[in-house]
């Protein structure tokens, strides 16, 4: 019934899902967990405000991950932040350029932008031409986004999603344009790059919490509380496994490999 070697993973997934659903249920009843401030997300409004003051646009990229690869979750999280950024930009009347490198994302981003501007009561300010499709190649993304950042002299550069080696070039171009930069990815190899180049960075899980954080919806915040219980579970399992292996027993490690 369950594939060999995947039983423990399946059980942990079920346990984690149940924990998250339980905390969501608690949140619905009013017991909303406290979550720490995420400077990277709080900085979005500041960055858009700076764009408005300087009369310059902003640039957003969700990276090369796309929606048809294993990195789709990070792109979805990036799109949630894009939606929030569009809303803030609509309030401040700041144009946001989005460099799109996957054609299958175009309808989604058009709709997302339209809905965000509509929600802020400014549908006429949404300009679909600011969503720039550059081709499905990673190098096209690099060239296209760098060109936009340099030519439009953006005052804010958001790099949030699944990034590969294009991250360094996009961020450095943003720095050269004098933009305030907010980065975010869960790809291990690119986290140091964004840390080195951006003013604010969402690291790993912070990226996935972004959608919930910006809405402040109790149910969504509850899921982050459930995530913390999962982290506690992972911590307990790690400590127990280290102790048992140190004491000469591999029983727990073998159990986790079932």
């Amino acid at each position: 019934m369950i594939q060999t070697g995947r039983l423990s993973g399946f059980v942990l997934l079920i346990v984690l899902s149940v924990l998250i659903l339980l905390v969501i249920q608690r949140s619905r009843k009013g017991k909303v967990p406290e979550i720490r401030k995420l400077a990277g997300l709080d900085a979005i409004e500041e960055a858009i405000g700076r764009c408005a003051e300087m009369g310059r646009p902003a640039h957003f990229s969700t990276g090369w991950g796309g929606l048809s690869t294993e990195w789709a979750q990070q792109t979805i999280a990036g799109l949630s932040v894009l939606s929030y950024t569009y809303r803030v930009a609509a309030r401040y009347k700041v144009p946001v350029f989005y460099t799109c490198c996957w054609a299958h994302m175009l309808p989604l981003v058009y709709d997302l932008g339209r809905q965000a501007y509509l929600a802020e009561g400014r549908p006429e300010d949404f300009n679909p031409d600011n969503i720039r499709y550059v081709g499905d190649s990673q190098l096209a993304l690099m060239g296209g986004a760098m060109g936009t950042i340099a030519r439009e002299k953006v005052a804010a550069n958001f790099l949030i999603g699944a990034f590969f080696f294009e991250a360094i070039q996009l961020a450095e171009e943003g720095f050269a344009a004098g933009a305030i930069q907010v980065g975010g990815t869960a790809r291990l190899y690119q986290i140091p790059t964004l840390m080195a180049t951006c003013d604010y960075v969402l690291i790993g899980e912070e990226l996935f919490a972004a959608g919930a954080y910006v809405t402040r919806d109790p149910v969504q915040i509850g899921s982050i509380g459930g995530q913390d219980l999962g982290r506690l579970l992972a911590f307990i399992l790690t400590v127990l496994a280290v102790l048992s292996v140190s004491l000469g027993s591999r029983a727990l490690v073998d159990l986790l490999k079932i």
Partner: protein
Amino acid sequence: MSALRAREIPISLFAFAVILLILGYFTTIRPLITAADYLKSFGVLLALIAVFLGVTDVLRVHLKHIAKRTPRQWYLSAWLIVSMLMMFAFGYVHKPTYDVLYARLYIPLSIGVGASIGYYLYSAFYRAFRIRNAEAAILFACAIIVVLRNAPVGEVIWTGFSVMGQWITDVPGAGASRAILIGAALGMVALAIRAMLGKEQGYLGGE
């Protein structure tokens, strides 16, 4: 709002796809595995079909620039459309010319863009390694040791760089990486649950 644009449809499709892919991955039930494989292939196919949408979009945006004679843009748009149509045409009509254009023009330009990463890395890490506080000093020291471990000259200067560099990579480096990975995996599960419940709608333009 029409039925086809209702939020519930994409959310239901998302939930169906996630559950099917999870079951296809974990279980040995053959029909579920086959259905999950079909779904993955369908996703790739859909993405490929969307390329036509991309071409249409490029034409729409850049023809508009040409028609409006947008300053400092219209001639670049014209060049882009000519290049694109030329590659299309040669790809179907005369493959050898297409191959020459691809190998002698596109590839060298791509390599040029890719190679500039080295310069950007140096300038970015120069700024990152300016010692402004204790954390930056620790980061700088670790980076120097790991660089000297990887560079052949490090071993010549002092053999200890190899041992220290290996330890930094294997112990604190691997520990921190795993912590980030576990956190990210938990975040992904929470995001998937929120999306399946229809609560996370930011990616659909909702709140």
